[in-house]
């Protein structure tokens, strides 16, 4: 039983890798307090999802979906097309987030999320 699961996992090693990458990103997100690191973690997670999505499109022996004469087997073009959009979105988010980080540093003088919360909390009381 568990042997079978391991075999299947091995067969799906690309998926597994992206899942591991996702968890690594999430872990960084949860445990690191530096805002830039949090953003990097976010990007790792996004990349993991992109990898996963593109991997879905792969077919054994398939080539890039450019319809040249003589090529008959292609990979699935849909995930690649979608992920192009996904990447742009992720970039946009990161750009805006970095702009906010700049502003935060200007206002609070630190990039540590706990310190920012502490500064803000003091002001509230």
């Amino acid at each position: 039983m568990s042997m079978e699961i391991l075999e299947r996992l091995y067969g799906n090693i690309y998926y597994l890798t992206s899942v591991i990458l996702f968890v690594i990103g999430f872990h960084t997100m949860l445990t690191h307090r530096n805002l830039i690191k949090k953003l990097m973690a976010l990007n790792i997670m996004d990349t993991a999802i992109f990898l996963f999505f593109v991997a879905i499109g792969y077919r054994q022996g398939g080539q890039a979906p450019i319809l040249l004469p003589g090529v008959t087997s292609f990979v699935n073009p849909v995930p690649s097309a979608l992920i192009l959009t996904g990447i742009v979105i992720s970039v946009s988010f990161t750009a805006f987030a970095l702009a906010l980080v700049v502003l935060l540093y200007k206002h609070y003088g630190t990039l540590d999320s706990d310190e920012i919360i502490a500064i803000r909390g003091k002001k509230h009381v």
Partner: protein
Amino acid sequence: MKKVLPVLVLAAIGMLLVLTVAEMPTFGDGQAPAHRGVMDKYLRDSAQDTGAINTIAAIILDYRAYDTLGEATVLFVAVLAVSAALYQGEHHA
């Protein structure tokens, strides 16, 4: 507690994901459900429909151009958001 909680959450998520991966269709399987949907039509018709031999380009720029409009809009939102957030009033501009 603050150290344990993330580990527990991650373990739960990781467990679920690994089991899911084990259940997924095999990587690279040409007959996986993902390839039985819209793919064939794109590969078959895109050249006549759009004149593009690159199917991905055909999808992005023609079949799913609305998404691409959305994609461009996201970029626009980001540019606008950054400039509006960093804007400090007339005299700086």
